[in-house]
């Protein structure tokens, strides 16, 4: 078994590159939404060049003391010329203000997107002339070696970047390619089996930003990477490309037919009224597909929400282009299984998908506007007003459902007739 990291000492991870992070074995949940069965680590690094020293990321504030002691074991504060923060979340920026105070010669390098966020961490006036914002292709020299930046937004914060040390083939990837896994043996060829942590981290942190993951991979895949040094979890020096390939596989679309648009109608029904409305909505969507002909095909699926746990539906939703929800109104609200599903959608990217709602009701009918509101807040587009029907839907109401499905499908195919309305007609 390999030795654990010595207390208060930096650990060499390459030529003149040291790990100076912290272990947090007692943490059991991260950012409220993530479980961390054996804790996590906050990885920070020091890179020494012939004419300067760079510190890449810091640690969560309450681990600052150990971080500074590890840093002091390999560098003097006066030598530090560069500080890089790959994103500003508190688990990595906790020791930043103090580091800036101690390393008085150092310039902070953050992404352009990070700049306006700095005022949340400290008074930017205090270090005003020591902050530089950078983007893809920008470099900072350390004499005989240099750091290069890649702007990789939304992985998982808007300001995320990756930092590349070409001379070592080392990518400081921030949270990207990281995981919450605390093991003092530090390297992927020395620690325990952390595959589940890696997958779990991707699913909860990166998956909602799948399109951005793919963009970042375009930048990262061509690099001759020998080591990935993420901000959490093991340092990936044994077959680092394997992890990059895994991200590529995880971020791919799971649907094989990529030309047809996908529209899913979800419903739940107490007495069958909402169910029959759902069938009319689905038939309307199919009808639109036929109308447009070869120019567009919409694949329509109909699911009873009661028939499954939310998770498999979330997988379907991730790949779908339009989502329609049918719920009865009971006690002035949509029913719980509908909310359970709608509250699971932050796990995937739904921004810009089309949404719509419908449902039957007894005497009020709040479910439809409430669902529409939730869909808008989730950043879906909701171009076609929903349909409510009292108790047993009439022929006209079924026709309205058919039209709701049809119009939504036409929107999906870019064939909707432009509408002109007056603001006063909007509620």
């Amino acid at each position: 078994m390999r030795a654990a990291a010595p207390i208060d000492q930096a650990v060499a991870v390459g030529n003149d590159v040291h790990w100076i992070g912290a272990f947090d074995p007692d943490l059991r949940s991260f950012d409220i939404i993530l479980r961390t069965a054996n804790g996590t680590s906050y990885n920070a690094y020091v890179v020494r060049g012939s004419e300067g020293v760079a510190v890449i990321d810091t640690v969560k504030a309450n681990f600052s003391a150990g971080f500074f002691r590890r840093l002091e074991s390999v560098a003097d504060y006066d030598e530090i010329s560069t500080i890089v923060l790959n994103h500003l979340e508190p688990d990595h920026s906790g020791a930043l203000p103090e580091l800036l105070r101690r390393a008085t010669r150092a310039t902070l390098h953050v992404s352009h997107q990070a700049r306006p966020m700095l005022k949340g961490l400290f008074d930017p006036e205090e270090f005003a002339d020591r902050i530089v914002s950078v983007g893809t292709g920008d470099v900072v020299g350390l004499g005989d070696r240099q750091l290069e930046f890649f702007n990789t937004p939304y992985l998982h914060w808007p300001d995320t970047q990756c930092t590349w040390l070409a001379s070592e083939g080392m990518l400081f990837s921030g949270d990207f390619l990281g995981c919450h896994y605390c093991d003092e043996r530090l390297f992927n060829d020395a620690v325990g089996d952390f595959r589940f942590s890696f997958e779990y981290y991707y699913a909860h942190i990166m998956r909602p930003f799948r399109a951005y993951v793919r963009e970042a991979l375009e930048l990262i895949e061509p690099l001759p990477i020998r080591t990935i040094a993420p901000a959490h979890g093991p340092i990936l020096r044994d077959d680092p490309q394997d992890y990059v390939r895994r991200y590529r596989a995880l971020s791919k679309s799971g649907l094989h037919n990529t030309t047809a648009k996908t529209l899913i109608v979800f419903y739940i029904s107490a007495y069958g009224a909402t169910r029959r409305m759902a069938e009319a909505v689905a038939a309307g969507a199919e009808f639109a597909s036929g109308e447009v002909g070869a120019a567009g095909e919409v694949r329509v699926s109909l699911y009873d929400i009661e028939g499954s746990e939310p998770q498999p539906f979330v997988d379907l939703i991730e790949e779908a282009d339009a989502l329609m929800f049918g719920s009865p109104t009971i006690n002035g609200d949509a029913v719980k299984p509908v909310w359970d599903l709608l509250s699971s959608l932050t796990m995937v990217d739904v921004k810009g998908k089309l949404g719509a709602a419908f449902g039957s009701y007894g005497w009020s009918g709040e479910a439809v506007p409430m669902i529409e509101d939730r869909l808008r807040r989730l950043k879906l587009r909701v171009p076609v007003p929903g349909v409510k029907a009292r108790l047993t839907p009439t022929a006209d109401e079924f026709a309205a459902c058919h039209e709701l499905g049809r119009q939504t499908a036409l929107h999906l195919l870019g064939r909707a007739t432009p509408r002109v309305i007056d603001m006063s007609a909007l509620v």
Partner: protein
Amino acid sequence: MPKANVTFQDIGVTVTVPAGTRLIEVSEKIGAGITYGCREGECCTCLTKVISGHEHLAAPSVLEAQVLKDNLAPRHHRLACQAQILGGDIVVKPA
């Protein structure tokens, strides 16, 4: 009261609105694809491309101008939670 026509290109809807309305008030109601975060002109989530008629929007406030600059917003882009409609015909879509 003077009126204006705002077209939300991504959903193909034109809305006739009274002058003084903010883009957010209309776009949310009709379910256009412009998305909102803080709603207070800070987060830049609601960045919107003004395809035509940008001169019919009130000039950005100091705060809005700063946020647009910080986020490297291209020309003719506005924050939909801030931009106020003055009149005429305006066409917008999410940035």
